[in-house]
């Protein structure tokens, strides 16, 4: 049995003549938060769907905690928790009923399912609306409920497809805390995102995906190092010194108020590697 949480080899998946995944290789060690970064249409969702057995690959193979996603679907589904890009909650049921259903179908006892449902509703700030139908929830509440559903059975591998899209800053912070907690508990997390800050903050390793392939991989720091040099910005005490400063920077003796060393941001990495700019995060008000 493989020791990798995720092992993807030459994975291809096409839709007609669109090659959503085009020979993708990826390895994720257990116990880490792994960030998958890519522009729209890069193949993030397709990869997540293949890993969660929702979609059959056209070629290549993928294993989750040692189990093949095609040959061994049941074993894979017993080990993953999924929160897809679009919240998958049953509108006609209450938040609590949604969670209990997922917990029951993940083979938890009725009592345990009820206990965990209450606990997650609390944890994701849904306690107040727990017994209201999900159709009355705001977009952010639905997302949180969907996440809670994906995590309720404490699976060893959690697949989160753009989990913070549409969350307000406070909910996003709560989710980040939850992901950090998962990692402390030893859960492997695969996180796709458009928020560079998110992977920078949470992920131990990052892969950049573009046109169905991984185009770069490493720690956030390695990726930044790979792209250009750091920028040193110097703030002058005396505005009048500006010309002199420029001339004299190679010499010595300029009074410096503040020095800010800027490493390339992940934005730069993104741009450099994929040739497009990352989506600007849209912050939603609470």
């Amino acid at each position, binding site marked *: 049995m493989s020791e990798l949480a995720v092992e993807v080899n030459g994975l291809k998946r096409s839709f007609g003549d669109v090659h959503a995944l085009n020979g993708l290789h990826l390895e994720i060690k257990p116990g880490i938060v792994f960030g998958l970064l890519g522009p729209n249409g890069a193949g993030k969702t397709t990869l997540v769907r293949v890993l969660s057995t929702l979609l059959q690959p056209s070629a290549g193979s993928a294993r989750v905690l040692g189990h093949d996603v095609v040959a061994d679907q049941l074993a894979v589904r017993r080990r993953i928790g999924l929160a897809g890009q679009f919240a998958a909650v049953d509108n006609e049921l209450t938040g609590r009923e949604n969670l209990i259903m997922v917990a*029951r179908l993940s083979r938890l006892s009725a009592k345990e399912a009820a206990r965990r449902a209450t606990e997650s509703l609390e944890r994701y700030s849904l306690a107040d609306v727990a017994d209201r139908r999900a159709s009355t929830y705001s977009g952010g509440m639905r997302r949180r409920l969907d996440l809670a559903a994906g995590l309720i059975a*404490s699976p060893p591998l959690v697949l989160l497809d753009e989990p913070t899209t549409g969350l307000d800053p406070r909910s996003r912070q709560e989710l980040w805390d939850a992901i950090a907690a998962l990692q402390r508990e030893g859960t492997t997390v695969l996180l796709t995102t458009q928020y560079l800050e998110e992977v920078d903050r949470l992920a131990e390793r990052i892969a950049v995906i573009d046109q169905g392939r991984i185009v770069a991989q490493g720690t956030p720091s390695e990726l930044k190092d790979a792209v250009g040099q750091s920028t040193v910005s110097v703030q002058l005490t005396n505005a009048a010194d500006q010309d002199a400063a420029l001339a004299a920077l190679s010499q010595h003796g300029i009074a410096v108020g503040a020095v800010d060393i800027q490493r390339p941001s992940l934005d730069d990495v993104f741009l450099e590697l994929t040739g497009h700019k990352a989506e600007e995060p849209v912050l939603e008000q609470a």
Partner: protein
Amino acid sequence: MTRVPERPGGRGAEPLAYSISDRRHLTPAEVLSDTRVLAGRQLRKVLRRPMYVVFLFIQPVLFVLLFRYVFGGAINTGHLSYVNYLMPGIIVMTATFGSMTTGLGLTEDMAGGVVDRLRSLPISHAAILIGRTAADMVTNLVTLVVMIGIGLLVGFRPSQPIYDFILAVLLTLAFAYVFSWISAWVGLASKNPETAQSVGFIWVFPLVFASSAFTPTTHMVAPVKAFANVNPITLLTNAARDLMVGGHSATAPALWALVWMVGLLLLFVPLAVRQLRRA
């Protein structure tokens, strides 16, 4: 950034409350338990939307009024009064249309992502559909009982023994169950809810109207008549009619209806499950 050990050590705050099974297949008990959970979910939703069930009656009630009081006088049904001829047909039609909610509901669940959620869980795909069709059968039973009540109000007078009557209802219910699977397949195969709304329904209309549900097939034009005579809806309606208000022996049409049911079930259960797997 915190370094973590390469292999997860213990699960900290929330230990696994169950151990991950390594059996390659689910046990029948597990499939049954999942089916129960899923059917329960469906029934709870129906109870929560009673208007939705009321909506299921509007059309059959309109048909009862239309045929009983408008067209009925012009239809010759021999020794049977038209209302006694009509009601078994209406009951079969109600069950057939009622079973179409299976497919519509599934397309809705697909569009809303619920199907994806369920498919990502360690349950059998068949349980998803068995749970759904079982719940729809319960809803269907309720609508049948109400339609029988409405029939009695407009003059329907069953003349056969009660156990024959019950047998007719059970046969109709079983037929609706089979049609639920066809509807499930159509619903899962259609790409979006709009298509399912139209296509999902259209194929049952010729089956219902080119049958003996509203008029005897004797006066239909030859090709339609040929179709109507082997139409499972004709066979079921004839059986139900004979079991409710008498006339002929119900044995032959009932047996043929059963043959249809078994055949359709054998065909559409695997088709629907396969379609769900691909959804």
